């Protein structure tokens, strides 16, 4: 197998483009979920909000204005083929250069800062980068600007095995209940179950990259997703927390084997502004 050379400048270019697209073009999956919700929402205020969100997506797409002013911290998942040779510089620096250019050229908000001094770096770098080596000679870039209204309402817990599936459900639904209007419902709920503390958190984040409406391939996990969705929508929180039938657009669960002594569970809340875009190089 030959090695395929990819200059890191190519990664910069793709990241730049994905930053702008993700922030201004709501995915077809999210638009379809909002339309479907408008059709079933019973609350008049809730229906009004769905109409506003659809109109918002339309304005953002046609005028290039960001969907939301919180253009987030940029989370980048890189899947790098084992047969790729990256040339011309440092990979992470190339990703961050793409973020810098995208946020500058797209008139996007710089929100990242030093966690202690609170000094803003001014260009929304650095991104949070997760890299995985996979088979093949391609590079897949999945990019998700993450708003913190919803990120701040997320949580990880490590339960004893006696908690069981009922305990997991209680925790997930309880998290959405406690967050109420804060994460800009309707939300998408990402759940990671298993692994270790950080693995569960990562799974919950990764699950948000899946298109809305797509179920997990494992029927047992898919069933859990639907049960959680029903329980969450029974909370009555509704669009923007003002009461209604649709509190969540979807629930995504990802799992990984864990230790005999634990059930790690992470809940990553994502607002309706479910931004993610990907490209394969």
């Amino acid at each position, binding site marked *: 197998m030959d090695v395929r050379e990819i200059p890191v400048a190519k990664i910069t270019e793709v990241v730049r483009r994905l930053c702008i697209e993700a922030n201004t073009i709501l995915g077809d999956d999210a638009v379809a979920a909002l339309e479907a919700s408008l059709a079933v929402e*019973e*609350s*008049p*205020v809730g229906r*009004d*909000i769905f109409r*506003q*969100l659809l*109109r*918002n*997506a339309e*304005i*953002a797409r046609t*005028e*290039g*204005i*960001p*969907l*939301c*002013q*919180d*253009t987030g911290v940029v989370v980048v998942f890189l899947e790098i083929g084992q047969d790729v040779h990256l040339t011309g510089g440092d990979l992470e620096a190339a990703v961050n250069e793409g973020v810098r250019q995208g946020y500058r050229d797209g*008139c*996007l*908000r*710089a*929100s990242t800062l030093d966690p202690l001094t*609170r000094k*803003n770096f*001014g260009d929304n770098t650095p991104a949070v980068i997760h890299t995985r080596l996979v088979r093949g000679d391609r590079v897949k870039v999945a990019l998700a600007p993450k*708003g913190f*209204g919803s990120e*701040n309402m997320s949580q990880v817990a490590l339960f004893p095995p006696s908690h069981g599936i009922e305990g997991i459900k209680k925790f997930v639904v309880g998290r959405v209940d406690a967050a*109420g*209007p*804060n994460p*800009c419902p309707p939300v998408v709920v990402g759940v990671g179950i298993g692994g270790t503390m950080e693995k569960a958190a990562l799974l919950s984040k990764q699950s948000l990259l899946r298109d809305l409406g797509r179920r997990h391939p494992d029927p047992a996990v898919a069933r859990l997703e639907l049960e959680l969705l029903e*329980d969450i929508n*029974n*909370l*009555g*929180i*509704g669009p*923007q*927390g*003002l*009461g*209604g*039938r649709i509190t969540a657009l979807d629930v995504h669960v990802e799992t990984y084997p864990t230790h005999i002594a634990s059930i790690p569970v992470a809940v990553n809340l994502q*607002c*309706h*502004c479910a931004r993610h875009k990907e490209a394969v190089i």
Partner: protein
Amino acid sequence: MSESIRIRPPLSDDTVVRLAAGDRVLISGIIYSARDAAHQRLVEQIRENRPLPVELDGQIIYYVGPTPPKPGMPIGAAGPTTSYRMDPYAPILIERGLKGMIGKGLRGDAVIEAMKRHKAVYFAATGGAGALISKTIQRAEVVAYEDLGTEAIRRLEVEAFPAIVVVDAHGNDLYREGRLKYRRG
């Protein structure tokens, strides 16, 4: 659904007490943007008895940190940010005459108490509708704390800015009531 109520700051106590949780409003006129860092500075200045860069009497503060404007536009995306982070500062501003706050999300008991005592109202704008809301902002001008960038205080001239009364000056809270109405099981 009932018609929207049109309001224009400065708000009198009379206007404020008539607004009820669940009312939809369209705000026109001048409102001020401020979020975390600006609140911290405003409260510091009040504590040190220094004059404020904007007079709060009867005014509305909008919790927003907009994106930079595209060329030729007054402002970028400008939806509300989560309000609870302003809770430690809000009662002090309400005591100083602030009559309205626009944000999203729950408010703490101390804020609601201050709203009842001094007659103020909390509005929610639609979180994540930043592009839509930007269309109601005709002009934006930084009036204080320019060094804070997106967090600077801006004087915003708005026309028919859509919001909903969530907590009124009597302490009614639509977040609580709306949820109970649709809760199942």
